[in-house]
Protein backbone atom coordinates (compact mmCIF):
# COMPACT_ATOMS: atom_id res chain seq x y z
CA UNK A 1 0.00 0.00 0.00
CA UNK A 2 1.33 3.34 -0.98
CA UNK A 3 -0.62 5.21 1.66
CA UNK A 4 0.82 3.21 4.48
CA UNK A 5 3.62 4.45 6.62
CA UNK A 6 4.88 1.61 8.76
CA UNK A 7 7.02 2.86 11.58
CA UNK A 8 10.41 1.17 11.74
CA UNK A 9 10.79 -1.47 14.42
CA UNK A 10 12.34 -0.01 17.50
CA UNK A 11 14.78 -2.72 18.53
CA UNK A 12 13.69 -6.11 19.77
CA UNK A 13 10.31 -6.18 21.45
CA UNK A 14 10.99 -8.83 24.06
CA UNK A 15 7.53 -8.69 25.60
CA UNK A 16 5.84 -9.27 22.27
CA UNK A 17 8.22 -12.09 21.44
CA UNK A 18 7.54 -13.71 24.79
CA UNK A 19 3.81 -13.35 24.36
CA UNK A 20 3.81 -14.80 20.86
CA UNK A 21 6.23 -17.62 21.57
CA UNK A 22 5.49 -18.32 25.21
CA UNK A 23 5.39 -22.08 24.74
CA UNK A 24 8.68 -22.17 22.84
CA UNK A 25 10.39 -20.00 25.42
CA UNK A 26 8.95 -22.23 28.15
CA UNK A 27 10.23 -25.33 26.40
CA UNK A 28 13.72 -23.89 26.08
CA UNK A 29 13.80 -22.86 29.74
CA UNK A 30 12.53 -26.28 30.75
CA UNK A 31 15.20 -28.03 28.69
CA UNK A 32 17.92 -25.78 30.09
CA UNK A 33 16.78 -26.47 33.64
CA UNK A 34 16.78 -30.21 33.04
CA UNK A 35 20.15 -30.03 31.31
CA UNK A 36 21.57 -28.42 34.43
CA UNK A 37 19.73 -30.75 36.81
CA UNK A 38 20.71 -34.06 35.25
CA UNK A 39 23.40 -35.16 32.79
CA UNK A 40 21.05 -37.90 31.60
CA UNK A 41 18.65 -35.47 29.96
CA UNK A 42 20.58 -34.18 26.98
CA UNK A 43 21.71 -37.51 25.55
CA UNK A 44 20.92 -38.94 22.14
CA UNK A 45 18.99 -41.93 23.43
CA UNK A 46 16.95 -39.83 25.85
CA UNK A 47 16.00 -37.32 23.18
CA UNK A 48 14.94 -40.22 20.98
CA UNK A 49 12.83 -41.46 23.90
CA UNK A 50 11.17 -38.10 24.25
CA UNK A 51 10.46 -38.20 20.53
CA UNK A 52 8.76 -41.56 20.85
CA UNK A 53 6.90 -40.58 24.00
CA UNK A 54 5.61 -37.34 22.54
CA UNK A 55 4.36 -39.03 19.38
CA UNK A 56 1.09 -40.37 20.77
CA UNK A 57 -0.08 -37.16 22.38
CA UNK A 58 1.28 -34.96 19.59
CA UNK A 59 -0.43 -36.89 16.78
CA UNK A 60 -3.68 -36.85 18.72
CA UNK A 61 -3.24 -33.14 19.41
CA UNK A 62 -2.65 -32.39 15.71
CA UNK A 63 -6.18 -33.58 15.03
CA UNK A 64 -7.46 -31.75 18.09
CA UNK A 65 -5.95 -28.52 16.73
CA UNK A 66 -8.41 -28.60 13.82
CA UNK A 67 -11.36 -28.96 16.16
CA UNK A 68 -10.17 -26.25 18.54
CA UNK A 69 -9.39 -23.87 15.66
CA UNK A 70 -13.00 -24.39 14.56
CA UNK A 71 -14.08 -23.39 18.10
CA UNK A 72 -15.02 -26.95 19.10
CA UNK A 73 -13.61 -29.44 21.54
CA UNK A 74 -13.18 -33.19 21.08
CA UNK A 75 -13.24 -35.15 24.32
CA UNK A 76 -13.62 -38.49 22.55
CA UNK A 77 -10.09 -38.80 21.14
CA UNK A 78 -8.71 -41.04 23.90
CA UNK A 79 -11.58 -43.48 23.49
CA UNK A 80 -11.38 -43.31 19.69
CA UNK A 81 -7.67 -44.13 19.90
CA UNK A 82 -8.50 -47.21 21.97
CA UNK A 83 -11.34 -48.38 19.72
CA UNK A 84 -9.23 -47.95 16.59
CA UNK A 85 -6.31 -49.84 18.11
CA UNK A 86 -8.64 -52.55 19.34
CA UNK A 87 -10.73 -52.72 16.18
CA UNK A 88 -7.77 -52.86 13.82
CA UNK A 89 -6.22 -55.74 15.69
CA UNK A 90 -9.50 -57.51 16.29
CA UNK A 91 -10.31 -57.38 12.59
CA UNK A 92 -7.11 -59.26 11.79
CA UNK A 93 -6.55 -61.56 14.74
CA UNK A 94 -10.16 -62.56 15.34
CA UNK A 95 -12.13 -61.81 12.20
CA UNK A 96 -9.37 -63.03 9.91
CA UNK A 97 -8.97 -60.00 7.67
CA UNK A 98 -5.65 -59.72 5.81
CA UNK A 99 -3.01 -58.15 7.97
CA UNK A 100 -2.46 -55.28 5.54
CA UNK A 101 -6.01 -54.08 6.16
CA UNK A 102 -5.50 -53.53 9.89
CA UNK A 103 -4.34 -49.91 9.62
CA UNK A 104 -7.03 -48.91 7.09
CA UNK A 105 -9.66 -50.49 9.34
CA UNK A 106 -8.32 -48.55 12.33
CA UNK A 107 -8.34 -45.29 10.41
CA UNK A 108 -11.85 -45.97 9.15
CA UNK A 109 -13.04 -46.51 12.71
CA UNK A 110 -11.46 -43.21 13.73
CA UNK A 111 -13.00 -41.34 10.81
CA UNK A 112 -16.41 -42.85 11.42
CA UNK A 113 -16.35 -41.99 15.14
CA UNK A 114 -15.31 -38.46 14.29
CA UNK A 115 -18.05 -38.21 11.70
CA UNK A 116 -20.68 -39.25 14.27
CA UNK A 117 -19.45 -36.65 16.78
CA UNK A 118 -19.31 -33.98 14.08
CA UNK A 119 -22.74 -34.82 12.73
CA UNK A 120 -24.23 -34.76 16.22
CA UNK A 121 -22.96 -31.24 16.77
CA UNK A 122 -23.40 -29.86 13.22
CA UNK A 123 -26.79 -31.33 12.39
CA UNK A 124 -28.03 -32.35 15.82
CA UNK A 125 -27.05 -28.94 17.25
CA UNK A 126 -25.42 -30.49 20.31
CA UNK A 127 -22.56 -28.45 21.73
CA UNK A 128 -19.30 -30.14 20.70
CA UNK A 129 -18.42 -30.57 24.36
CA UNK A 130 -21.53 -32.67 24.94
CA UNK A 131 -21.44 -34.57 21.64
CA UNK A 132 -17.83 -35.61 22.17
CA UNK A 133 -18.41 -36.34 25.85
CA UNK A 134 -21.16 -38.74 24.84
CA UNK A 135 -18.83 -40.32 22.29
CA UNK A 136 -16.09 -40.64 24.90
CA UNK A 137 -18.31 -43.02 26.85
CA UNK A 138 -19.95 -44.77 23.90
CA UNK A 139 -16.67 -45.47 22.14
CA UNK A 140 -14.91 -46.67 25.29
CA UNK A 141 -17.88 -48.93 25.92
CA UNK A 142 -17.64 -50.39 22.42
CA UNK A 143 -13.95 -51.03 22.99
CA UNK A 144 -14.78 -53.03 26.10
CA UNK A 145 -17.52 -54.90 24.25
CA UNK A 146 -15.14 -55.95 21.46
CA UNK A 147 -12.33 -56.88 23.81
CA UNK A 148 -14.45 -58.27 26.63
CA UNK A 149 -12.20 -56.23 28.88
CA UNK A 150 -9.02 -58.06 27.90
CA UNK A 151 -6.01 -56.89 25.95
CA UNK A 152 -5.51 -58.51 22.56
CA UNK A 153 -2.27 -58.74 20.62
CA UNK A 154 -1.92 -56.36 17.76
CA UNK A 155 -1.88 -57.19 14.09
CA UNK A 156 1.70 -57.24 12.86
CA UNK A 157 1.18 -54.24 10.59
CA UNK A 158 0.04 -52.27 13.65
CA UNK A 159 3.03 -53.52 15.65
CA UNK A 160 5.20 -52.23 12.83
CA UNK A 161 4.05 -48.70 13.75
CA UNK A 162 5.87 -49.11 17.06
CA UNK A 163 9.08 -50.55 15.61
CA UNK A 164 12.16 -48.90 14.16
CA UNK A 165 12.74 -48.08 10.52
CA UNK A 166 16.49 -48.36 10.27
CA UNK A 167 17.91 -46.22 13.07
CA UNK A 168 14.77 -44.12 13.46
CA UNK A 169 11.78 -45.25 15.46
CA UNK A 170 8.56 -45.36 13.43
CA UNK A 171 6.59 -43.24 15.93
CA UNK A 172 8.98 -40.36 15.27
CA UNK A 173 8.65 -40.77 11.51
CA UNK A 174 4.86 -40.81 11.81
CA UNK A 175 5.02 -37.80 14.10
CA UNK A 176 7.00 -35.78 11.56
CA UNK A 177 5.01 -36.88 8.52
CA UNK A 178 1.62 -36.41 10.14
CA UNK A 179 2.70 -33.04 11.55
CA UNK A 180 3.72 -31.79 8.12
CA UNK A 181 0.53 -33.17 6.64
CA UNK A 182 -1.61 -31.53 9.33
CA UNK A 183 0.14 -28.18 8.90
CA UNK A 184 -0.32 -28.40 5.14
CA UNK A 185 -4.01 -29.20 5.38
CA UNK A 186 -4.63 -26.55 8.02
CA UNK A 187 -2.81 -23.73 6.24
CA UNK A 188 -3.01 -24.50 2.55
CA UNK A 189 -6.33 -26.14 1.86
CA UNK A 190 -9.71 -24.49 1.60
CA UNK A 191 -10.95 -26.86 4.26
CA UNK A 192 -8.20 -25.77 6.69
CA UNK A 193 -8.69 -22.07 6.10
CA UNK A 194 -12.43 -22.54 6.42
CA UNK A 195 -11.97 -23.97 9.91
CA UNK A 196 -10.25 -20.75 10.97
CA UNK A 197 -13.14 -18.72 9.59
CA UNK A 198 -15.76 -20.93 11.23
CA UNK A 199 -13.93 -20.85 14.55
CA UNK A 200 -13.23 -17.13 14.35
CA UNK A 201 -16.79 -16.14 13.58
CA UNK A 202 -19.29 -18.80 12.60
CA UNK A 203 -21.93 -16.35 11.45
CA UNK A 204 -19.54 -14.31 9.30
CA UNK A 205 -18.26 -17.54 7.74
CA UNK A 206 -21.79 -18.71 6.99
CA UNK A 207 -22.78 -15.38 5.46
CA UNK A 208 -19.69 -15.57 3.24
CA UNK A 209 -20.97 -18.81 1.75
CA UNK A 210 -18.68 -21.15 3.71
CA UNK A 211 -20.39 -24.52 4.36
CA UNK A 212 -20.14 -24.28 8.14
CA UNK A 213 -21.74 -27.63 8.93
CA UNK A 214 -19.57 -29.54 6.50
CA UNK A 215 -16.49 -27.84 7.95
CA UNK A 216 -17.54 -28.83 11.47
CA UNK A 217 -18.05 -32.47 10.49
CA UNK A 218 -14.75 -32.53 8.61
CA UNK A 219 -12.68 -31.24 11.52
CA UNK A 220 -14.08 -34.02 13.70
CA UNK A 221 -13.33 -36.61 11.02
CA UNK A 222 -9.77 -35.30 10.89
CA UNK A 223 -9.55 -35.43 14.67
CA UNK A 224 -10.86 -39.01 14.60
CA UNK A 225 -8.28 -40.01 11.98
CA UNK A 226 -5.39 -38.59 13.96
CA UNK A 227 -6.72 -40.15 17.17
CA UNK A 228 -6.89 -43.52 15.41
CA UNK A 229 -3.32 -43.16 14.18
CA UNK A 230 -2.21 -42.19 17.66
CA UNK A 231 -3.98 -45.18 19.19
CA UNK A 232 -2.36 -47.56 16.72
CA UNK A 233 1.10 -46.13 17.41
CA UNK A 234 0.55 -46.69 21.12
CA UNK A 235 -0.73 -50.22 20.58
CA UNK A 236 2.19 -50.86 18.23
CA UNK A 237 4.65 -49.79 20.89
CA UNK A 238 2.98 -52.08 23.42
CA UNK A 239 2.39 -54.89 20.92
CA UNK A 240 -0.97 -55.04 22.56
CA UNK A 241 -4.30 -53.30 22.16
CA UNK A 242 -5.72 -52.62 25.55
CA UNK A 243 -9.27 -51.71 26.47
CA UNK A 244 -8.05 -48.95 28.77
CA UNK A 245 -5.59 -47.64 26.20
CA UNK A 246 -5.17 -43.86 26.08
CA UNK A 247 -7.84 -43.15 28.64
CA UNK A 248 -7.55 -39.56 29.81
CA UNK A 249 -5.29 -38.67 26.89
CA UNK A 250 -7.90 -36.23 25.57
CA UNK A 251 -7.00 -33.84 28.35
CA UNK A 252 -3.30 -34.02 27.51
CA UNK A 253 -4.10 -33.43 23.84
CA UNK A 254 -6.23 -30.40 24.66
CA UNK A 255 -3.54 -29.11 27.01
CA UNK A 256 -0.91 -29.50 24.27
CA UNK A 257 -3.01 -27.51 21.80
CA UNK A 258 -3.70 -24.76 24.30
CA UNK A 259 -0.10 -24.56 25.51
CA UNK A 260 0.80 -24.26 21.84
CA UNK A 261 -1.08 -20.99 21.67
CA UNK A 262 -4.47 -21.98 20.29
CA UNK A 263 -7.49 -20.27 21.73
CA UNK A 264 -10.35 -22.34 23.07
CA UNK A 265 -12.69 -19.72 21.68
CA UNK A 266 -11.57 -20.66 18.20
CA UNK A 267 -9.99 -19.05 15.16
CA UNK A 268 -6.40 -19.30 16.38
CA UNK A 269 -3.99 -22.23 16.36
CA UNK A 270 -0.82 -23.60 14.80
CA UNK A 271 0.39 -27.15 14.30
CA UNK A 272 3.93 -26.12 15.22
CA UNK A 273 2.57 -24.64 18.44
CA UNK A 274 0.73 -27.84 19.19
CA UNK A 275 3.92 -29.85 18.70
CA UNK A 276 5.72 -27.55 21.11
CA UNK A 277 2.86 -27.91 23.58
CA UNK A 278 3.05 -31.69 23.40
CA UNK A 279 6.83 -31.52 23.78
CA UNK A 280 6.48 -29.39 26.89
CA UNK A 281 4.30 -32.07 28.47
CA UNK A 282 6.55 -34.94 27.35
CA UNK A 283 9.74 -33.21 28.49
CA UNK A 284 8.25 -32.49 31.89
CA UNK A 285 7.20 -36.12 32.34
CA UNK A 286 10.55 -37.39 31.11
CA UNK A 287 12.48 -34.95 33.28
CA UNK A 288 10.47 -35.64 36.39
CA UNK A 289 11.08 -39.37 35.88
CA UNK A 290 14.79 -38.79 35.41
CA UNK A 291 14.84 -36.79 38.61
CA UNK A 292 12.71 -39.42 40.37
CA UNK A 293 10.15 -36.85 41.46
CA UNK A 294 7.15 -38.35 43.22
CA UNK A 295 3.97 -38.97 41.31
CA UNK A 296 2.07 -36.48 43.41
CA UNK A 297 4.41 -33.63 42.57
CA UNK A 298 4.39 -34.52 38.90
CA UNK A 299 0.69 -33.74 38.75
CA UNK A 300 1.21 -30.45 40.55
CA UNK A 301 3.95 -29.42 38.13
CA UNK A 302 2.02 -30.35 34.99
CA UNK A 303 -1.04 -28.45 36.18
CA UNK A 304 1.06 -25.40 36.95
CA UNK A 305 2.63 -25.49 33.49
CA UNK A 306 -0.78 -25.57 31.82
CA UNK A 307 -1.92 -22.60 33.89
CA UNK A 308 1.21 -20.61 33.03
CA UNK A 309 0.91 -21.42 29.34
CA UNK A 310 -2.70 -20.32 29.20
CA UNK A 311 -1.70 -17.22 31.13
CA UNK A 312 0.54 -16.35 28.21
CA UNK A 313 -2.42 -16.82 25.91
CA UNK A 314 -4.41 -14.29 27.90
CA UNK A 315 -1.48 -11.87 27.92
CA UNK A 316 -1.16 -12.14 24.17
CA UNK A 317 -4.83 -11.48 23.55
CA UNK A 318 -4.64 -8.42 25.80
CA UNK A 319 -1.71 -7.11 23.77
CA UNK A 320 -3.62 -7.53 20.55
CA UNK A 321 -6.69 -5.69 21.72
CA UNK A 322 -5.26 -2.75 23.70
Amino acid at each position, binding site marked *: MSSVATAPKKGFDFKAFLANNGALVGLVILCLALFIA*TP*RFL*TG*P*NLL*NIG*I*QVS*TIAVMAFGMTFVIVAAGIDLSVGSVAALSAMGSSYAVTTSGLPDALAIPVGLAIGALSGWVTGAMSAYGKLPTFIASLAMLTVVRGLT*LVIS*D*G*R*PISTASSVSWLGDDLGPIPMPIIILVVSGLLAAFVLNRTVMGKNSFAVGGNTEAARLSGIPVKRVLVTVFVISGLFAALSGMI*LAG*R*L*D*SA*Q*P*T*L*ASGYELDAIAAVVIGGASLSGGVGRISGTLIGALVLAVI*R*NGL*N*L*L*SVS*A*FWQQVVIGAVIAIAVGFDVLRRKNVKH
Partner: protein
Amino acid sequence: MKKLIRTTAAITLSLGLAASLAACNRGETAADGASATLAVSTLNNPFFVDLRDGAQAEADALGMDLSVVDAQNDSATQANQLATAATNGSAGVIINAVDTETAEAGLAPVVKANLPIVAVDRAVGNTKVASFVASDNVAGGEQAAKALAESLKGKGKIIVLEGVPGASATNERGEGFTKGLKEFKDIEVVSKQTANFDRAEALDVVTNLMQSNPDAVGVLAMNDEMALGAIQALGDKAGKSVKVLGFDGTEDGFKAVKAGSMVATIAQNPAELGKQSVQMLSKAINGEDVEANAQVAVDTVDSKNIAEYSGK
Protein backbone atom coordinates in the same frame (compact mmCIF):
# COMPACT_ATOMS: atom_id res chain seq x y z
CA MET B 1 -72.25 -48.48 54.80
CA LYS B 2 -72.82 -51.75 53.09
CA LYS B 3 -71.03 -50.40 50.10
CA LEU B 4 -68.04 -49.44 52.21
CA ILE B 5 -67.73 -52.92 53.65
CA ARG B 6 -67.90 -54.41 50.22
CA THR B 7 -65.23 -52.11 48.91
CA THR B 8 -62.94 -52.78 51.85
CA ALA B 9 -63.37 -56.48 51.42
CA ALA B 10 -62.56 -56.24 47.76
CA ILE B 11 -59.43 -54.24 48.41
CA THR B 12 -58.26 -56.57 51.15
CA LEU B 13 -58.86 -59.56 48.96
CA SER B 14 -56.99 -58.16 46.01
CA LEU B 15 -54.10 -57.02 48.17
CA GLY B 16 -53.88 -60.46 49.72
CA LEU B 17 -53.93 -62.05 46.30
CA ALA B 18 -51.19 -59.80 45.06
CA ALA B 19 -49.08 -60.53 48.11
CA SER B 20 -49.45 -64.29 47.75
CA LEU B 21 -48.64 -64.04 44.04
CA ALA B 22 -45.52 -62.10 44.88
CA ALA B 23 -44.61 -64.73 47.45
CA CYS B 24 -45.10 -67.44 44.84
CA ASN B 25 -42.79 -65.60 42.49
CA ARG B 26 -40.11 -65.41 45.08
CA GLY B 27 -40.55 -69.03 45.99
CA GLU B 28 -40.06 -70.06 42.38
CA THR B 29 -36.61 -68.50 42.10
CA ALA B 30 -35.63 -69.83 45.46
CA ALA B 31 -36.53 -73.32 44.31
CA ASP B 32 -34.09 -73.07 41.43
CA GLY B 33 -31.37 -71.86 43.75
CA ALA B 34 -31.09 -68.40 45.23
CA SER B 35 -30.56 -65.29 43.15
CA ALA B 36 -27.58 -63.17 44.16
CA THR B 37 -25.73 -60.04 43.10
CA LEU B 38 -22.04 -59.75 42.37
CA ALA B 39 -20.95 -56.10 42.55
CA VAL B 40 -17.60 -55.74 40.78
CA SER B 41 -15.41 -52.67 41.06
CA THR B 42 -14.58 -52.64 37.34
CA LEU B 43 -14.63 -54.89 34.32
CA ASN B 44 -12.05 -52.74 32.53
CA ASN B 45 -9.36 -54.94 33.97
CA PRO B 46 -8.81 -58.56 32.91
CA PHE B 47 -8.27 -59.54 36.51
CA PHE B 48 -11.83 -58.73 37.46
CA VAL B 49 -13.12 -60.21 34.24
CA ASP B 50 -11.49 -63.48 35.30
CA LEU B 51 -12.92 -63.09 38.77
CA ARG B 52 -16.38 -62.64 37.30
CA ASP B 53 -15.95 -65.63 35.01
CA GLY B 54 -14.89 -67.84 37.93
CA ALA B 55 -17.87 -66.67 39.95
CA GLN B 56 -20.28 -67.10 37.06
CA ALA B 57 -19.06 -70.63 36.35
CA GLU B 58 -19.49 -71.64 39.98
CA ALA B 59 -22.91 -69.99 40.18
CA ASP B 60 -24.01 -71.91 37.09
CA ALA B 61 -22.75 -75.12 38.64
CA LEU B 62 -24.70 -74.44 41.83
CA GLY B 63 -27.79 -73.29 39.94
CA MET B 64 -27.53 -69.87 41.46
CA ASP B 65 -28.96 -66.93 39.53
CA LEU B 66 -26.05 -64.49 39.68
CA SER B 67 -26.51 -60.98 38.39
CA VAL B 68 -23.25 -59.10 37.85
CA VAL B 69 -23.07 -55.32 38.13
CA ASP B 70 -20.03 -53.20 37.22
CA ALA B 71 -19.33 -50.00 39.17
CA GLN B 72 -16.68 -48.77 36.69
CA ASN B 73 -14.44 -47.90 39.61
CA ASP B 74 -16.89 -45.38 40.97
CA SER B 75 -17.91 -45.67 44.62
CA ALA B 76 -21.15 -43.78 44.13
CA THR B 77 -22.22 -46.07 41.29
CA GLN B 78 -21.43 -49.05 43.46
CA ALA B 79 -23.49 -47.64 46.33
CA ASN B 80 -26.47 -47.31 44.00
CA GLN B 81 -26.00 -50.83 42.73
CA LEU B 82 -25.86 -52.17 46.28
CA ALA B 83 -29.03 -50.33 47.20
CA THR B 84 -30.73 -51.94 44.21
CA ALA B 85 -29.38 -55.36 45.20
CA ALA B 86 -30.90 -54.93 48.65
CA THR B 87 -34.38 -54.60 47.19
CA ASN B 88 -34.43 -56.60 43.95
CA GLY B 89 -34.87 -59.98 45.52
CA SER B 90 -31.23 -60.99 45.79
CA ALA B 91 -30.69 -63.45 48.58
CA GLY B 92 -27.13 -62.32 49.14
CA VAL B 93 -24.43 -59.99 47.86
CA ILE B 94 -20.83 -60.55 46.83
CA ILE B 95 -18.93 -57.29 46.83
CA ASN B 96 -15.64 -56.47 45.26
CA ALA B 97 -15.42 -52.96 46.69
CA VAL B 98 -14.28 -49.99 44.64
CA ASP B 99 -12.92 -48.51 47.79
CA THR B 100 -12.46 -50.10 51.18
CA GLU B 101 -13.50 -47.03 53.14
CA THR B 102 -16.62 -46.00 51.26
CA ALA B 103 -17.94 -49.54 50.87
CA GLU B 104 -19.25 -49.47 54.42
CA ALA B 105 -21.79 -46.78 53.66
CA GLY B 106 -22.71 -48.37 50.36
CA LEU B 107 -23.43 -51.68 52.06
CA ALA B 108 -25.75 -50.16 54.68
CA PRO B 109 -28.97 -50.96 52.76
CA VAL B 110 -27.81 -54.58 52.32
CA VAL B 111 -27.06 -54.89 56.02
CA LYS B 112 -30.45 -53.40 56.79
CA ALA B 113 -32.12 -55.94 54.52
CA ASN B 114 -30.31 -58.59 56.54
CA LEU B 115 -28.73 -60.24 53.51
CA PRO B 116 -25.47 -62.17 53.82
CA ILE B 117 -22.44 -60.37 52.43
CA VAL B 118 -19.25 -61.85 51.03
CA ALA B 119 -16.37 -59.49 50.37
CA VAL B 120 -13.95 -60.53 47.71
CA ASP B 121 -10.44 -59.25 46.97
CA ARG B 122 -10.90 -56.04 48.95
CA ALA B 123 -12.03 -55.48 52.53
CA VAL B 124 -15.19 -53.51 53.25
CA GLY B 125 -14.30 -51.44 56.31
CA ASN B 126 -16.08 -52.49 59.49
CA THR B 127 -19.12 -54.03 57.87
CA LYS B 128 -19.81 -57.48 59.23
CA VAL B 129 -19.41 -59.98 56.43
CA ALA B 130 -20.13 -63.67 56.27
CA SER B 131 -16.77 -64.19 54.66
CA PHE B 132 -13.83 -62.25 53.28
CA VAL B 133 -12.31 -64.05 50.32
CA ALA B 134 -8.93 -62.63 49.40
CA SER B 135 -5.42 -63.41 48.50
CA ASP B 136 -2.84 -61.99 50.77
CA ASN B 137 -1.25 -59.04 49.00
CA VAL B 138 1.42 -58.54 51.63
CA ALA B 139 2.51 -62.18 51.43
CA GLY B 140 2.37 -61.96 47.65
CA GLY B 141 4.56 -58.87 47.65
CA GLU B 142 7.04 -60.63 49.85
CA GLN B 143 7.12 -63.65 47.54
CA ALA B 144 7.60 -61.39 44.52
CA ALA B 145 10.48 -59.50 46.06
CA LYS B 146 12.17 -62.72 47.05
CA ALA B 147 11.72 -64.23 43.61
CA LEU B 148 13.32 -61.23 41.96
CA ALA B 149 16.16 -61.03 44.47
CA GLU B 150 16.92 -64.70 44.04
CA SER B 151 17.01 -64.43 40.27
CA LEU B 152 19.52 -61.59 40.70
CA LYS B 153 21.58 -63.77 43.01
CA GLY B 154 20.97 -61.36 45.85
CA LYS B 155 22.57 -58.21 44.54
CA GLY B 156 22.10 -55.28 42.15
CA LYS B 157 20.11 -52.13 41.59
CA ILE B 158 16.41 -52.40 40.97
CA ILE B 159 13.50 -50.17 39.99
CA VAL B 160 10.11 -50.44 41.67
CA LEU B 161 6.96 -49.65 39.67
CA GLU B 162 4.13 -48.64 41.95
CA GLY B 163 0.42 -48.77 41.35
CA VAL B 164 -2.18 -46.05 41.72
CA PRO B 165 -0.93 -43.92 44.62
CA GLY B 166 -2.98 -44.52 47.72
CA ALA B 167 -4.73 -47.71 46.51
CA SER B 168 -4.77 -50.50 49.07
CA ALA B 169 -3.10 -52.95 46.69
CA THR B 170 -0.28 -50.44 46.19
CA ASN B 171 0.20 -50.03 49.90
CA GLU B 172 -0.03 -53.75 50.74
CA ARG B 173 2.18 -54.96 47.92
CA GLY B 174 4.63 -52.20 48.73
CA GLU B 175 4.71 -53.40 52.33
CA GLY B 176 5.36 -56.93 51.08
CA PHE B 177 8.15 -55.71 48.79
CA THR B 178 9.88 -54.02 51.69
CA LYS B 179 9.54 -57.10 53.88
CA GLY B 180 10.80 -59.39 51.15
CA LEU B 181 13.80 -57.24 50.28
CA LYS B 182 14.87 -56.80 53.89
CA GLU B 183 17.04 -59.90 54.00
CA PHE B 184 18.83 -59.00 50.74
CA LYS B 185 21.28 -56.33 51.84
CA ASP B 186 22.93 -56.00 48.44
CA ILE B 187 19.75 -55.21 46.58
CA GLU B 188 19.36 -51.47 46.20
CA VAL B 189 16.13 -49.80 45.14
CA VAL B 190 17.40 -46.93 42.98
CA SER B 191 14.03 -45.52 41.97
CA LYS B 192 10.39 -45.89 42.93
CA GLN B 193 7.94 -44.40 40.45
CA THR B 194 4.28 -44.90 39.76
CA ALA B 195 2.90 -46.07 36.47
CA ASN B 196 -0.65 -46.28 37.80
CA PHE B 197 -1.01 -50.00 37.03
CA ASP B 198 -1.00 -49.00 33.34
CA ARG B 199 1.01 -50.70 30.60
CA ALA B 200 1.49 -47.69 28.33
CA GLU B 201 2.54 -45.52 31.23
CA ALA B 202 5.04 -48.10 32.45
CA LEU B 203 6.56 -48.21 28.98
CA ASP B 204 7.39 -44.49 29.16
CA VAL B 205 8.38 -44.47 32.81
CA VAL B 206 10.78 -47.41 32.49
CA THR B 207 12.30 -46.00 29.30
CA ASN B 208 13.00 -42.80 31.18
CA LEU B 209 14.27 -44.54 34.31
CA MET B 210 16.69 -46.69 32.32
CA GLN B 211 18.18 -43.42 31.10
CA SER B 212 18.84 -42.20 34.60
CA ASN B 213 19.74 -45.66 35.94
CA PRO B 214 21.39 -47.53 33.11
CA ASP B 215 22.94 -49.98 35.56
CA ALA B 216 19.61 -51.21 36.94
CA VAL B 217 19.29 -54.97 36.65
CA GLY B 218 15.77 -55.58 37.92
CA VAL B 219 12.24 -54.20 37.73
CA LEU B 220 9.77 -55.06 40.44
CA ALA B 221 6.26 -54.17 39.27
CA MET B 222 3.10 -54.14 41.34
CA ASN B 223 1.09 -55.72 38.53
CA ASP B 224 1.60 -57.62 35.31
CA GLU B 225 0.43 -54.76 33.12
CA MET B 226 3.25 -52.53 34.32
CA ALA B 227 5.72 -55.41 34.13
CA LEU B 228 4.72 -55.96 30.50
CA GLY B 229 5.18 -52.26 29.79
CA ALA B 230 8.62 -52.50 31.36
CA ILE B 231 9.48 -55.51 29.19
CA GLN B 232 8.41 -53.53 26.13
CA ALA B 233 10.66 -50.67 27.24
CA LEU B 234 13.62 -52.97 27.87
CA GLY B 235 13.32 -54.77 24.56
CA ASP B 236 16.02 -57.44 24.19
CA LYS B 237 17.37 -56.73 27.64
CA ALA B 238 14.22 -58.05 29.31
CA GLY B 239 14.84 -61.37 30.92
CA LYS B 240 18.55 -61.24 30.11
CA SER B 241 20.45 -58.31 31.61
CA VAL B 242 17.36 -56.92 33.34
CA LYS B 243 14.97 -59.17 35.22
CA VAL B 244 11.33 -58.20 35.46
CA LEU B 245 8.83 -59.41 37.99
CA GLY B 246 5.08 -59.03 37.74
CA PHE B 247 2.08 -59.60 39.93
CA ASP B 248 -1.48 -60.89 39.28
CA GLY B 249 -0.88 -63.83 36.96
CA THR B 250 -2.79 -62.54 33.96
CA GLU B 251 -2.83 -64.39 30.66
CA ASP B 252 -0.33 -61.98 29.09
CA GLY B 253 1.80 -62.29 32.21
CA PHE B 254 1.96 -66.08 31.85
CA LYS B 255 2.90 -65.71 28.19
CA ALA B 256 5.79 -63.46 29.17
CA VAL B 257 6.97 -65.93 31.82
CA LYS B 258 6.80 -68.69 29.24
CA ALA B 259 8.76 -66.57 26.77
CA GLY B 260 11.36 -65.88 29.43
CA SER B 261 11.03 -62.11 29.38
CA MET B 262 9.39 -62.13 32.80
CA VAL B 263 11.09 -63.95 35.62
CA ALA B 264 7.93 -64.68 37.50
CA THR B 265 4.52 -63.38 38.32
CA ILE B 266 2.55 -63.79 41.46
CA ALA B 267 -0.59 -65.61 40.43
CA GLN B 268 -3.51 -64.36 42.40
CA ASN B 269 -5.93 -66.66 40.68
CA PRO B 270 -8.87 -64.34 40.25
CA ALA B 271 -11.11 -67.13 38.96
CA GLU B 272 -10.54 -69.00 42.20
CA LEU B 273 -11.41 -65.84 44.16
CA GLY B 274 -14.67 -65.61 42.24
CA LYS B 275 -15.40 -69.31 42.65
CA GLN B 276 -14.80 -69.35 46.41
CA SER B 277 -16.80 -66.20 46.99
CA VAL B 278 -19.82 -67.82 45.31
CA GLN B 279 -19.32 -70.97 47.38
CA MET B 280 -19.17 -68.92 50.59
CA LEU B 281 -22.28 -66.97 49.70
CA SER B 282 -24.18 -70.08 48.79
CA LYS B 283 -23.32 -71.60 52.18
CA ALA B 284 -24.28 -68.40 53.96
CA ILE B 285 -27.65 -68.27 52.21
CA ASN B 286 -28.35 -71.85 53.18
CA GLY B 287 -27.36 -71.11 56.77
CA GLU B 288 -24.29 -73.32 56.80
CA ASP B 289 -21.01 -72.50 58.52
CA VAL B 290 -18.76 -70.18 56.57
CA GLU B 291 -15.04 -69.47 56.93
CA ALA B 292 -14.67 -65.85 58.06
CA ASN B 293 -11.40 -65.47 56.17
CA ALA B 294 -11.01 -67.56 53.07
CA GLN B 295 -7.43 -67.28 51.88
CA VAL B 296 -6.94 -68.04 48.24
CA ALA B 297 -3.54 -69.41 47.49
CA VAL B 298 -1.02 -67.03 45.95
CA ASP B 299 1.57 -68.75 43.81
CA THR B 300 4.86 -67.71 42.43
CA VAL B 301 4.66 -68.73 38.81
CA ASP B 302 8.03 -69.02 37.12
CA SER B 303 9.57 -71.06 34.35
CA LYS B 304 9.44 -74.20 36.51
CA ASN B 305 5.71 -74.33 37.09
CA ILE B 306 4.43 -72.23 34.21
CA ALA B 307 3.12 -75.30 32.41
CA GLU B 308 0.44 -75.76 35.06
CA TYR B 309 -0.91 -72.26 34.50
CA SER B 310 -0.52 -71.15 30.94
CA GLY B 311 -3.02 -72.18 28.38
CA LYS B 312 -5.79 -72.57 30.88
